[in-house]
């Protein structure tokens, strides 16, 4: 496929591309990770002024919020936006588009083969300075950097699925692959040698190897959380803040049903339940919330890991949801975020399926 050779490092190249898109008026705004040089604090920037690009860090291995979620509403503004998204953010966004929470119409999506991101605490503690350089060299060698999010280590969907432009950085140099007409059209006139090339498959294979191994480990480690007791062990310390659902790119509800009146304790049932059990936990429905949320979104889970990051009591939420999600999606050979045209499994059905049920 048509690709652009990047002379400098990928970040600089993309920074230039984004600046070019803005100054050439092809897009009205750009969504990308930023890092404020002074404070070192990172955030997602929606940048409209090319000069603002200096702060842009398109491939910063940090996810302060799933950009798919952040992009959601502004993508429907009718203005043209170029967004740099990590593969799971793009997939998250795609899932939201299926739920009318976003639109590709005026969007140029730029993604890259993703080496994973660091958990929030590492970002806050200001370790990035040391971490990022090693991260860059290791990922260029298809090796797994230390200290990434658990779900990133175990992520097998690190190659963008439906981006307009995807970036691959390997030992053999850095390439910008143009996957769509929109990509061709927008990059027209942008400096850089055009060649016919694909992302280095052996590089991808080597990454996949370590990812699959890590995933096996992760799922293995979650086995102990199996069964009712295991589940209670795992979620027993949940404080019910529902932060996991608020930062989830799939949980798009503005009101979570599990916070509705339907799930409040009712007298006298609470009393009877108390008599039956001798004791009860307050607030109630910890497990119900987790199971319920699984029924609502597990098949769309993109395993971005935000939920684990924000959990105040460090429950490995992301691992559990990824593990379960792969099975529920697997029932329908569904791959969340693969293609915005692929219908959400629970919204459609086949007359001839699941014959063994019922």
């Amino acid at each position: 496929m048509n690709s652009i050779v990047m002379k400098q490092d990928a970040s600089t190249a993309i920074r230039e591309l984004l600046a070019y898109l803005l100054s050439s008026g092809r897009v009205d705004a750009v969504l990308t990770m930023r890092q404020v040089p002074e404070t070192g604090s990172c955030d997602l920037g929606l940048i409209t002024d090319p000069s603002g690009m200096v702060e842009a860090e398109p491939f910063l291995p940090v996810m302060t919020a799933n950009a798919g979620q952040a992009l959601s509403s502004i993508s429907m503004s009718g203005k043209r936006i170029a967004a740099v998204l990590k593969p799971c953010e793009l997939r998250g966004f795609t899932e939201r588009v299926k739920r009318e929470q976003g639109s590709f119409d005026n969007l140029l999506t730029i993604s890259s083969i993703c080496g994973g991101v660091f958990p929030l605490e590492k970002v806050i503690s200001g370790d990035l300075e040391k971490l990022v350089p090693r991260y860059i060299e290791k990922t260029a060698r298809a090796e797994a950097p230390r200290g990434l999010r658990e779900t990133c280590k175990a992520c097998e969907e690190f190659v963008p699925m439906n981006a307009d432009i995807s970036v691959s950085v390997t030992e053999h140099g850095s390439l910008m692959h143009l996957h769509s007409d929109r990509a061709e059209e927008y990059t027209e006139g942008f400096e850089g040698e055009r060649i016919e090339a694909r992302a280095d498959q052996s590089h991808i294979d080597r990454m996949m190897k370590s990812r699959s191994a890590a995933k096996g480990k992760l799922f293995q480690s979650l086995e102990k959380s199996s069964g009712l007791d295991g589940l209670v062990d795992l979620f027993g310390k949940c404080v019910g803040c529902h932060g996991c659902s608020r930062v989830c790119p799939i949980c798009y509800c503005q009101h979570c049903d599990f916070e509705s009146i339907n799930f409040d304790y009712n007298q006298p049932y609470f009393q009877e339940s108390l008599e039956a059990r001798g004791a009860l936990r307050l607030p109630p429905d910890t497990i119900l919330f987790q199971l319920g949320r699984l029924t609502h979104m597990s098949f769309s889970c993109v395993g971005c890991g935000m939920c684990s990051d924000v959990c105040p009591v460090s429950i490995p939420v992301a691992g559990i949801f990824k593990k379960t999600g792969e099975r529920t999606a697997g029932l329908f050979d569904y791959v969340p975020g693969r293609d915005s045209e692929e219908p959400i499994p629970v919204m459609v059905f086949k007359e001839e399926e699941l014959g063994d049920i019922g």
Partner: protein
Amino acid sequence: MISDKHDDFTPRITSFLCKWCSYTGADLAGTNRLQYPTSIIPIQVMCSSRVDPVFLIKAFLSGSDGVLMGGCHPGDCHYETGNYHTRRRFAILKEIFDSLGLESDRLKLSWISASEGPKFAQVSNEYTEQIRKMGKNPTRKSVFL
């Protein structure tokens, strides 16, 4: 007859029954005086597709030993296609239970038409027996749910 009052454990099986088929099927079982255990606790819904999987989870976590969902046979839904959605939702729920090592056998989906009174009685009896073998639902006593 299965339900034996000397047995100290009569399971509680919350049963969400579609008004148009399974509930009518249950009525027919009655009209034919087909005996089935007291374990079945019928709750009528307009369509099995009305049953949010969360209902089943709630019943399960509230100590229901089994949860039965009765719907029209695929293709015969009074509302055209509701039960196809039911089937998918149920499949997903079972998958979740399995992947978390929860006893997914405590959840059952059964297609029982309005004319299948005997089937309703049979399903009730067999499922009750199955649940009795599994024993009481541990969630009955669990404190940290």
